[in-house]
């Protein structure tokens, strides 16, 4: 097996055993980037010189017999909405296109302290608002499994980089599905942790009520190891829980699912979603049964009917408030004007993309008199109802399986414009975000056309270990996803 095909854990082990060096691992990643990035477009900024220098430092530390961390010398990538000290952090927006933060996001510090080597910063939909990674200052990212298709979003650059073998592990953020959906579209694993598990200090906010730092990888074991590095209390983020985390990788020793009760989503007919994805869900349920679990069909009526509307009211209102900080004064793009108000409007109108402007105006609307009482207030109560529905499920079941997406990755440039239909793409991911639950996208192989299939495994809040345990059993049965050489599965238009 070549270096770029290894998982993060395998890479760390091989470096520790001196089968190859960290410098060689970094060079192998940049060889992939050099060969395929022109086709994929997953990266906004690459850091080859700095990565090689840090890899050399790690090699020296290991040569001296030092413990350089659990991911010593392993290459990784972060989405370009993580602040990186002295490294351009754009959020794919003109308003931050030349901004260099003066500090690192806490998760970046944690990964660096664990010995991992930051290789590049990945593309995203502007301010993480989107689900196709087409709305970016550098243009769209393409799906390495089929270059004619979107990689999903908003963490599409991170997912594409892992699938294409640039790195074994990447970090993204998931607000309403922004890691699970691109993981599904690119045929890899991705975990949105429970709300409060991982610090968001230094993450550029879209919706603080929902945003979660989330790892993407080609194995469940890598997700567990990433969680052990990332999930910890942080006094810089008051929304990050102060409890002592379990050892996430301990859950991976689960041999089978005997004694486990698993619910499988039964709220859709086969005709309501892609038949291959419907089949993947049934297959995952059968595999759980085969592994010894008691499996039962169960509906999710409130979350499925009201989840998407509740999500959009919550997220847009929050976004309009969060993005108020971009005023062109302390950092970012500045376009002058005769008055302060003119300067604000000049800067924000010219520097935010169309989708971001639309969401800010709509969010502003939702927080004004009348709209607040008819939309935002009811959404807060519906959200409570949804969490009660989830509580009821997890009183009976250890884990719950449902699709990650109702459709396969679609062709670039064919984004749905009817909001009613467009938002239904998020129907299975946003309820999990609203409930603060852990949700893991597990790759389930490919359909007859070579497109990735997937299933979502959900647990109770703070039940991330349970989710990882179930996922590891299923992954052993179906096989973990492999790196692909990016290519088009048909004629490029």
């Amino acid at each position: 097996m070549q270096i770029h095909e290894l998982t993060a854990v395998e890479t760390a082990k091989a470096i520790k055993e001196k089968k190859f060096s960290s410098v060689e691992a970094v060079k192998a990643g940049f060889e992939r980037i050099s060969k395929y990035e022109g086709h994929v477009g997953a990266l906004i900024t690459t850091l080859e010189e700095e990565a090689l220098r840090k890899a050399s430092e790690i090699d020296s530390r290991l040569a001296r017999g030092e413990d350089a961390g659990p991911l010593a010398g392993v290459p990784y990538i972060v989405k370009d909405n993580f602040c990186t000290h002295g490294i351009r952090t754009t959020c794919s927006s003109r308003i931050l296109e030349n901004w260099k933060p003066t500090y690192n996001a806490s998760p970046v510090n944690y990964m660096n302290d664990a010995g991992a080597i930051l290789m590049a910063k990945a593309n995203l939909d502007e301010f993480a608002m989107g689900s196709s990674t087409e709305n970016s200052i550098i243009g769209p990212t393409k799906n390495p499994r089929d270059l004619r298709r979107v990689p999903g979003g908003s963490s599409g650059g991170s997912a594409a980089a892992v699938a294409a073998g640039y790195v074994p592990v990447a970090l993204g953020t998931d607000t309403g599905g922004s890691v699970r959906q691109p993981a599904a579209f690119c045929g890899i694993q991705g975990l949105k942790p429970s709300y409060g598990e991982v610090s968001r200090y230094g993450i550029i906010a879209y919706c603080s009520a929902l945003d979660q730092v989330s790892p993407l990888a080609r194995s469940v074991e890598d997700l567990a190891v990433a969680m052990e590095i990332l999930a910890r209390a942080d006094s810089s983020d008051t929304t990050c829980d102060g409890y002592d985390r379990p050892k996430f990788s301990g859950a991976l020793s689960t041999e089978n699912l005997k004694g486990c009760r698993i619910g499988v989503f039964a709220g859709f007919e086969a005709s309501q979603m892609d038949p291959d994805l419907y089949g993947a869900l049934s297959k995952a349920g059968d595999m759980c049964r085969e592994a010894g679990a008691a499996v039962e069909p169960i509906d999710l009526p409130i979350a499925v009917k009201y989840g998407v509307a509740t999500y959009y009211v919550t997220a847009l209102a929050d976004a309009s408030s969060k993005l108020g900080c971009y005023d062109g004064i302390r950092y970012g793009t500045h376009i002058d004007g005769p008055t302060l108000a003119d300067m604000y409007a000049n800067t924000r109108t010219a520097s935010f993309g169309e989708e971001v402007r639309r969401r800010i105006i709509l969010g502003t609307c939702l927080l004004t008199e009348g709209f607040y009482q008819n939309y935002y207030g009811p959404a807060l109560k519906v959200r409570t109802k949804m969490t009660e529905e989830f509580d009821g499920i997890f009183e009976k079941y250890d884990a719950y399986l449902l699709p990650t997406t109702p459709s396969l990755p679609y062709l670039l440039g064919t984004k749905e414009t009817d909001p009613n239909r467009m938002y239904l793409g998020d129907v299975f991911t946003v309820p999990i975000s609203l409930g603060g639950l852990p949700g893991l996208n597990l790759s389930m192989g490919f359909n007859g056309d070579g497109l990735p299939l997937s299933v979502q495994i959900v647990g109770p809040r703070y039940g991330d270990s349970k989710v990882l345990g179930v996922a590891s059993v299923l992954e052993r049965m179906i096989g973990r996803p492999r790196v692909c050489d990016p290519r088009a599965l048909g004629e490029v238009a």
Partner: protein
Amino acid sequence: MKMTVDREVTLRMAKAAQLRIAPDQIDHMMDSINDILDFCALVGDLDCTGTPDFSWKMKKLPSRRPDAPSDWCDRDEFKASAPAMDGNFFRVPKINAEE
């Protein structure tokens, strides 16, 4: 209750958000907002009588940082990322044009 916006409200919301809408884009923005308001009115359909507003619960409150200045960043480095500085001050236009 389902609500809608008209051109005047659309422009007022844009102004509140410190954004401008080009004259030929106002109707498009208004229609787009109304489509989403129409879809999201669903949140009013569920009977939530007696249901409290949602709030997050934590297992354990996080530790607090000391309430004291810290050296979390270098002042000169921070100033260097500002678009326009006047010594130690951020440079901004006049609040009102006639001043």
